[in-house]
């Protein structure tokens, strides 16, 4: 699927797709402005980040115990809990639940974890119809594409492209490029699906251990319908989504929605705690939770990389990444794109497979500045780069460690290091370079495709300073 060559090919395709790049620029500029309007008081934002990071960090430290408590509470509430080590296991569990319930049609709310497991394909191959009900997911399901963003999966498409997709998929509905009309058309199609579906599958934003509550935010009401209208509801989530107390949820929700979409709160906040009770008129008869590991416990074994698991999937790092803004999400070729993808995917898939992503970063620091849980993303990206070429001493070896090592590059750095750590040699080097500046090449590979070649100065700064009478050691 991936590897360095595949990645470069997709980068090339993305950079040549002018329409898509314009779509990304427009959409992300608007999301950035909305987020900034919510966080006008920087002191407040920084305090909230500290608070939320502490909540997440404490939950990670106590994760094993919290997961046990979560299972106990959920079971008491009548929600059945299933544990999956791998993506395939999760898919098999969900498929078995559906088969046992005689379910052949499923509506789905947005879930990145189900993208991780490739759930839709798995179920479709077994004859189960899966309909994505989040508008963005609905659009890309029609286009047969994966999400290009973890919060806004169809962000790469503009309304004309969406209108054309709808025209081809629903010939009975009159063509429109009006956003409200398009939404109404999707609603028309989806309402019937909700009414007919045997089961609903959703993700989870936070699973609360003390009360056994599954918290799910959304804007379209599709999450509410997915989790209440069909007779079976299956939620799937990563094990790291557990938090301890209900009182942890408000600050988490605040920073999640403000960071993600610039909303003070989403239109719908679902707190799911039990299936339908006797005498109640609605709600699913069965509720299941599938808790997936899929490589997460491996990430836990490294103190620095552990921060990866603090992530609440708001997508702010993606929205601010200047490389993502140019490329969009598909170029990454992984489930999670952007900075969090560069950090998460090489750990999940190994450095041979996804290590090339670490080169798609200027280490500008924008992602680390906006991350609501203060994951030091630039530092982690740099760490993974180092792991990919030389490994890091004392660390738990990552899969594919040193797989991107190139002898020539390693040699060049060794030379550079030798020069920069020997002042006399370095001085001699600058003397030679400044005197022979006319020999500097005019073409420098990819650099001069877009810029002129830099020329060494006539005199080194040290020489100039000496001449001005400064004492230089």
């Amino acid at each position, binding site marked *: 699927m991936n590897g360095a060559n595949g990645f470069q090919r997709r980068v090339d395709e993305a950079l040549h797709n002018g329409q898509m790049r314009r779509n990304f620029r427009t959409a992300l500029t608007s999301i950035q402005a909305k987020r900034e309007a919510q966080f006008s008081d920087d002191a407040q934002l920084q305090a909230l980040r500290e608070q939320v990071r502490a909540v997440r960090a404490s939950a990670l430290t106590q994760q094993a115990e919290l997961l046990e408590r979560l299972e106990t509470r959920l079971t008491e509430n009548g929600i059945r809990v299933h544990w999956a080590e791998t993506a395939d296991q999760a898919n098999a569990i969900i498929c078995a639940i559906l088969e046992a319930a005689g379910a052949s049609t499923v509506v789905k709310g947005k879930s990145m974890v189900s993208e991780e497991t490739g759930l839709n394909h798995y179920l479709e191959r077994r004859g189960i119809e899966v309909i994505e009900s989040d508008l963005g997911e609905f659009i890309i399901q029609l286009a047969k594409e994966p999400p290009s963003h973890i919060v806004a999966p169809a962000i790469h498409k503009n309304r004309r492209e969406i209108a054309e997709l709808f025209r081809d998929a629903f010939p009975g509905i009159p063509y429109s490029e009006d956003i409200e009309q398009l939404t109404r058309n999707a609603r028309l199609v989806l309402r019937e699906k909700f009414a007919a579906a045997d089961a609903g599958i959703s993700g989870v934003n936070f699973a609360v251990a003390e009360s056994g509550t599954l918290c799910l935010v959304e804007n379209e009401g599709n999450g509410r319908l997915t989790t209440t209208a069909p007779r079976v509801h299956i939620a799937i989530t990563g094990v790291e989504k557990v938090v301890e107390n209900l009182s942890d949820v408000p600050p988490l929700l605040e920073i999640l929605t403000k960071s993600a979409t610039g909303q003070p709160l989403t239109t719908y906040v679902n707190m799911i705690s039990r299936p339908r009770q006797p005498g109640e008129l609605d709600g699913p008869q069965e509720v299941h939770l599938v808790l997936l590991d899929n490589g997460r416990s491996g990430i836990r074994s490294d103190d620095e990389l552990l921060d990866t698991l603090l992530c609440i999937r708001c997508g702010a790092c993606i929205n601010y990444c200047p490389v993502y803004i140019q490329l969009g999400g598909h170029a990454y070729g992984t489930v999670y794109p952007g900075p969090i993808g560069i950090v998460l995917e090489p750990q999940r898939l190994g450095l041979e497979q996804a290590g090339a992503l670490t*080169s798609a970063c200027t280490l500008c620091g924008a992602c680390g500045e906006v991350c609501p849980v203060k994951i030091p993303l630039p530092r982690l990206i740099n760490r993974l780069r180092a792991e990919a070429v030389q490994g890091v001493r004392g660390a738990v070896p990552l899969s594919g460690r040193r797989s991107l090592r190139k002898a020539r590059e390693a040699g060049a750095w060794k030379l550079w290091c030798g020069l920069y750590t020997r002042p006399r040699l370095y001085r001699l080097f600058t003397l030679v370079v400044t005197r022979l500046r006319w020999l500097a090449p005019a073409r420098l590979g990819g650099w001069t495709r*877009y810029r002129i070649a830099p020329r060494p100065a006539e005199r080194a700064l040290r020489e100039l300073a000496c001449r001005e009478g400064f004492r230089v050691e």
Partner: protein
Amino acid sequence: VSDRIETLVAQLGNVEVVTYARETECCGFGGTFAIKQPDISGAMVKDKTDALRATRATRVISQDCGCLMNIGGAFARQAGRLGECPEFQHIAEFLWERTA
């Protein structure tokens, strides 16, 4: 420090500081990034030069030599095709020139 430099420079006589679109967005240098991902880097620096050109500023000042080399180099390469190239200076050079 970028905001402090802006304040400092704005206080000098005969200087008009102009702002431009997406000032805080990375110019695409990133050290070896510019060599390893030349096309992504090229796309990023193109956006940066376009935004700067729209201001019609005559001089671009920065405290980062990498940014200066990248943006200045791109401007020089585009010169002629896309119009005049402003002068690129490190903040220290700019202040030195004014005090000398």
